[in-house]
């Protein structure tokens, strides 16, 4: 029985398609390869990449030879009526070459990229347990991967079609099937048990001497809150968030200021609401005038924005928006005043809290990060410490860990003087998701940490709280500067 032979007519579309494809793609691949190997040089004869050119020529030659071989093969086939080339064998050979080359490639990549796996040694205490779990899993899976993939392609090669042979009629073997059900079960049981203990250890009880730090995520940045001298983080609520109180800490003066602002805004909106009918008329008149004088053709851009306002006004969308805004602000005001009644909530613990734009930790000291999100879900990701936890609006989450390697030590081991730890956002959160990060510094001693913390301004300085508005203004500008600093770090917001 003849099976699977190639019959190519000269000038057949296959050949054309192939040649086209290779011609189109080869320069791409070579260019990219050259780019990967080294940056482009100045154009001169001496700088010509002779290796690439030779590769090019060689590739072209190979293509021509193959094309010629196809032609000759097809011709011979036509004359003799016998199949010359068996694609079945070619595929089998490609399979065996593929598996040998790609397993070599895998080993090469392990050698080349292996140094980046898990970013080197862990920088946290639980990270060591994590790493050992990882390498156990890696050992098992890599072994299975190599063996099964090799067998798959080896079988392809070994048992390729031969018309003189019949396949083995073999549909079932209980013993064999039981073995390969039980063996993976045992291996997985081992991995599950290990995983269970590792997971329990990492997420287990937090010891009492652990320091709490609040990590606050928002579109698009992070802030941290440290307790002041009272060693206690103040209460907070999302309704208290304002320009001068970005984390919404329950602190009297800031919240009172927010209440004042909200009341003012409500009054303004209500005034707009009262005059809504008049403004609708005004927009209508302006719109009609614009159209009747033909200005909408001369100034299409202006007309576009005018028309949007006009449509909003006429359709009642403008009034509805006003109404919604007023309702929302009033709800916020009501909620804040409910909280204000609770003196335990406003216990003054937050007054000396420090809101920072960097996280500083002391080596070998246990920390518990308490995560909050302001607007959407974010995820705090610190790969060097094997730490990740989602920050969910309305649901407090936390992660406890102990850093074991200072920034200075990490710089030394990595041989990079500018290396810094970062906490990244790892849950899609909007346009600037890719640049939402905060620096994490691990210092060697408590003293270093204290110096840094002392340099951070508390939410309100005790003296200022009693005094006049002048200082309040100062703190406002300070916060403003902080915001600007944030913004300059974040090019997409500019």
């Amino acid at each position: 029985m003849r099976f699977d032979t190639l019959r190519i007519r000269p000038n057949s579309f296959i050949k054309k398609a192939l040649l086209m494809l290779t011609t189109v793609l080869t320069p791409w691949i070579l260019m990219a390869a050259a780019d990967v190997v080294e940056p482009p040089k100045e154009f001169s004869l001496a700088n010509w990449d002779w290796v690439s050119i030779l590769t090019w020529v060689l590739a072209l030659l190979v293509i021509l030879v193959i094309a010629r071989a196809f032609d000759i093969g097809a011709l011979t086939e036509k004359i003799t009526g016998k199949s010359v080339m068996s694609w079945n064998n070619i595929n089998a050979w490609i399979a065996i070459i593929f598996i040998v080359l790609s397993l070599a490639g895998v080993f090469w990549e392990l050698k080349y990229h292996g140094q980046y796996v898990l970013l080197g040694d862990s920088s946290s205490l639980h990270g060591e347990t994590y790493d050992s779990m990882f390498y156990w899993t890696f050992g098992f899976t890599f072994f299975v991967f190599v063996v099964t993939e090799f067998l798959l392609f080896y079988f392809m090669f070994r048992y390729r079609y031969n018309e003189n042979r019949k396949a083995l009629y073999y549909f079932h073997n209980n013993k064999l099937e039981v073995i390969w059900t039980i063996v993976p079960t045992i291996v997985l049981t081992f991995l599950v048990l290990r995983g269970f203990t590792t997971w329990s250890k990492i997420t287990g009880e937090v010891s009492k001497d652990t320091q709490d730090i609040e990590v606050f995520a928002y579109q698009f940045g992070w802030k941290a809150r440290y307790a002041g001298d009272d060693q206690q983080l103040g209460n907070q609520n999302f309704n208290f968030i304002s320009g001068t109180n970005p984390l919404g800490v329950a602190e009297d003066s800031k919240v009172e200021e927010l209440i004042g602002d909200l009341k003012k805004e409500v009054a303004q909106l209500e005034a707009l609401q009262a005059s809504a009918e008049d403004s609708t008329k005004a927009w209508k008149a302006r719109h009609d005038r614009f159209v009747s004088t033909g200005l909408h053709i001369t100034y299409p851009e202006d007309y576009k924005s005018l028309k949007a306002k006009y449509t909003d006004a006429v359709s009642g969308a403008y009034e509805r928006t006003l109404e919604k805004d007023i309702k929302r602000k009033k709800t916020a005001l009501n909620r804040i005043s409910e909280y204000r009644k609770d003196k335990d909530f406003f216990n003054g613990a937050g007054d000396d809290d420090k809101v920072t734009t960097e996280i500083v930790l002391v080596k070998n000291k246990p920390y518990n990060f308490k995560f909050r999100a302001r607007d959407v879900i974010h995820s705090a990701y610190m790969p060097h410490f094997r730490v990740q936890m989602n920050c969910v609006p309305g649901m407090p989450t936390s992660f406890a860990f102990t850093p074991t390697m200072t920034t200075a030590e990490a710089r030394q081991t990595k041989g990079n003087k500018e290396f810094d730890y970062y906490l990244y956002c790892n849950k899609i959160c909007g346009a600037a998701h890719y640049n939402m990060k905060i620096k994490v510094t691990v210092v060697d001693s408590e003293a270093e940490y204290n110096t840094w913390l002392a340099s951070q301004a508390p939410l309100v300085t005790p003296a200022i709280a009693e005094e006049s508005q002048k200082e309040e203004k100062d703190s406002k500008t300070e916060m403003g500067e902080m915001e600007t600093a944030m913004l300059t770090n974040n090019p997409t917001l500019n």
Partner: protein
Amino acid sequence: MSTAAIHADTHHDHHEHKESFISKYVFSMDHKMISKQFLITGIVMGMVGLIMSLIFRLQLAWPDEQFGFLETLLGKWAVDGKLDPNFYMGLVTIHGTIMVFYVLTAGLSGTFSNLLIPLQLGARDMASPFMNMLSYWFFFLSSVTLLSSVFVETGPASGGWTVYPPLSALEKAMPGSGLGMTLWLAAIALFIVSSLLAGINYISTVLNMRTKGMSMNRMPLTIWAFFFTAILGLLSFPVLLGAAIFLIFDRSFGTSFYLSDIYLEGVGALENIGGSPVLYQHLFWFLGHPEVYIILMPALGITSEVISTNARKPIFGYTAMVISLMGISFLSFIVWGHHMFITGMNPFLGSVFMILTLIIAVPSAVKAFNYLTTLWKGNLRFNPAMLFSIGLVSFFISGGLTGIYLGNAALDIQLHDSYFVVAHFHLVMGSAAIFGMFAGIYHWYPKMFGRMMNKTLGYFHFWITFITAYLVFFPMHFMGLAGVPRRYYQFTLVEDFNVWMDVNKLITVAAIVGGGAQLLFLYNFFYNIFKGKKAKQNPWQSNTLEWSTPVERIHGNWPGEIPTVYRGPYEYSRPDREEDFFPQYEPDESAPEVLHTKETKSAPDTKKVEEVEEGSVFFAAIKRVFGLS
């Protein structure tokens, strides 16, 4: 052929002439036509999804480069040839949605369930042809709705294909959460309607409309896979519909199912309190996890069929294959929490989900080993379909093994949402399933169009796609292990990630080459519909029933009586037969149904054969579990 059958034959011919263009090609109720409609829509959607991925790959490889043609193509989304971050997110989201739902759910299972369930079981059509037609048209509407969202002024939905609220619920949180998101939800709701209509149909057809002799344990593994897939879809898609409806309420009617304690820049504190974003994740992944098996299982079914046919060898461990499909289906409903280990879910719940998740590796391992044993000592014919099936097995192994890392709650801390995850699911679910789909297309193309595809082009298509798929996804494991997060618009702003720039370029180049190879497929597919070589009756010398139908499409599938089935579908290379195949529909009373290897030496034990014939797979399963056989 009896006189009645001949009469039926002429009746059918008569009927054929009456078909108008609209009833034949547009609002067709013939399962074969509907399957082609699903396939071609799926291919079109797949090309859109592929092109989207190439555009965002360009951005990742050359973030500082300006591509003039992008501005021509995308207008304001690529000013000066630089992709807009919001649109990047939109592309990522729509790429994911298209590939997961439109190509690999509807395109794969819609095509082959529709084609093969009646043909391989011996039915004239689906249980309810009208519902079947509705199912396609809901799918079509859904596709149009989704694609139209790309042209909305504020851009398409861009919160990732999982569209987690609050990001997707708040219009002010990102532009894509405006009208684009509304359209996304509408599209998904329509899609779910389509998928439920189809699922009910598949299940009832499989259970009720098998031809004489086609007991459950003689069904091809494709049918088993489609059957379990339909059950999964029927039980899990309504939950997604619920999640989507809650989200619609939160977005448009001011409810707080998923929203609480939110302060938005430029808006202020929102009124919503008491909701939980994590609730959405639970509902979403209750569908989302079965969904990955809804995608993969039909591909595994197709692979079983194609490998057995082209290895000229019975599929090894038919019963074990069915039991593992069953096990995977059952387990897939109770493992959804492994997508949520680090959402702040109770750690104890995390450990439970971890244990259940890793159990799923056992039936998956059994399947992989069974495929290997089927190839062992076979007589392998490398048709393009066979190559794609072997490619699937390769992806299934390499992608499946990384699931053991991700299913482990402890290891997930580091790997969650990193490129490791991207590598994992693109191999085990994306590439594997699309290879299953290609295998199916190459294998059943003669049945669908009555013509053959060009094999040589198929070989080039396979090897280029296979190699580039590995080049694209394999290095991503290493990126993920080095803590590179997914869904980042560019990596140059983080110094640590700069070492991956050359890898990113390699991936993009490989993706472009792989994408280009799909042109070979498109050409091969569309050209040969019209100009291909006429197909033979049974071009692959296969055993299953669909190859007994006439090459030319007719209404009702078989001109006369539906053939009777005498044996299982995988009786290849039987020592008692001269030919290396033995069709299910070939009457030969003297031949025993199954030839036990031991029995070939002695006389066949007819009593035992009888027993096998009557016992269902379930019965056999119970016997196997308790070691009775």
